[in-house]
């Protein structure tokens, strides 16, 4: 590799876009050529400088409010007229209701209705699950080793999540991620079932909470339960039977005394 080649390829190398052979050639060149090595160093610094969060322009609130289904508590006033309109919309046309679901806070109320005692947490968990499937959003820590994943959460959450590898049961652990549900930081563990992804969210619960439920929505199954002071929500597009099996495996493996199974 000549310095001329390296001048262009050093950027692809910095961006981790070279294949293994090219990377090896680049590493060798950087070892041999101090000028190129220094240039590599400078561009590395430039990349770090550009990573400062101050440069990222987040959407202003006005724009966000226009497009986000607001949390009910945060927008009590603007929510009320549309909440009144929601039942009417359902009665008139499903399509109109769809538009409301998209753009108004009434969608949470709507989900509550059709969920039959369901919970906004379920809708949030599904949204979060779908979001996690987008490129590069699935995992913050990639590891199949529970002893790597669990310590990774240390200092990032105000509780210690239960992390279990269930490879033996056919649900290999593949990593973890920080996420937010019901307005708080939660631990998300990612498991696989064949080619499907299972997200398991957990966060502390009131000591008394023992509710458990299973719901299906938009082709996703959501199983919630609480035990030993923790809320758990498992979400996946695997069959309900498979997800139930996963939940039982997690409960058993977690050493729950009576392995309370969902109804």
């Amino acid at each position, binding site marked *: 590799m000549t310095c001329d080649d390296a*001048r262009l390829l050093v950027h692809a190398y910095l961006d981790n876009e070279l294949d293994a052979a090219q990377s090896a050639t680049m590493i060798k060149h950087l070892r041999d050529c101090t000028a190129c090595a220094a240039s590599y160093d400078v561009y590395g610094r430039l990349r770090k400088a550009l990573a400062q969060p101050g*440069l990222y322009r987040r959407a*202003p609130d006005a724009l966000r409010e*226009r497009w986000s289904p607001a949390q009910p508590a945060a927008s009590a006033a603007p929510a009320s007229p549309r909440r009144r309109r929601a039942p009417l919309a359902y009665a008139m046309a*499903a399509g109109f209701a769809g538009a409301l679901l*998209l*753009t108004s806070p009434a969608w949470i109320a709507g989900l509550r209705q059709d969920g039959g005692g369901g919970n906004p947490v379920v809708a949030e968990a599904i949204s979060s699950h779908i979001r996690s499937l987008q490129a590069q959003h699935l995992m913050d820590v990639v590891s199949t080793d529970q002893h790597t994943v669990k310590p990774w959460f240390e200092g990032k959450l105000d509780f210690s999540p239960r992390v279990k590898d269930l490879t033996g049961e056919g649900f290999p652990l593949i990593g973890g991620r920080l996420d937010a549900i019901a307005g708080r930081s939660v631990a998300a563990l990612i498991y696989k079932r064949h080619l499907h992804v299972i997200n398991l969210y957990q966060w502390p619960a009131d000591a008394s909470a023992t509710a458990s439920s299973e719901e299906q929505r938009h082709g996703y199954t959501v199983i919630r339960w609480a035990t030993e002071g923790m809320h758990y929500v498992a979400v996946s597009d695997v069959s309900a039977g498979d997800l139930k099996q996963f939940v039982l495996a997690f409960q058993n493996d977690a050493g729950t005394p009576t392995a309370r199974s969902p109804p």
Partner: protein
Amino acid sequence: MPADLHVISPNPDSVRSARFEALVLPCLDAAYNLARWLARDNADAQDVVQEAMLRALRYFDSFHGSDARVWLLAIVRNTFYTLRTKTPPGSLHESLDEDAHTLVDGGPSPETLTLLAVDVGTLQLALERLPSPLREVIVLRELEECSYKEIAAITEQKIGTVMSRLARARERLKAELAHHPKEVRRHDV
């Protein structure tokens, strides 16, 4: 004003809406970030994003890919170029093509070694001074952390073009940052 939005969606149904809400709305920050760096103005950027989101909603049925962010960013970019300039994005290329700006990199000067100390304001100015075809690749790469393949998809360029533009963008930034504030700093020492 948000009350008017519910009439916009032409063919809504709740599943489609839920999908849009789950896939596209989380990309709002990314959309705004790109629009803001392209437009270099808050109000213009909001207009661009608002229009781009409406287009995204209208054409959501045509989204079959796996990455809604790439899809949305491509819409944001096209919206920006159609709204802001009457010139199509393609015509901006000529002034920048390979021979016009050959890579001039004389290796690191002592000044550039203090790049890390560059403050956000200086970086922002340097970024805004880049021509938009270079600015968009660097914003997509460094702020949105897109891969070359994703940048190529968003900007409708070949990966090779993305790579060379990114190289030129960084060289221009380095030169800018080395010249302006660092002179002062060196005299101080």
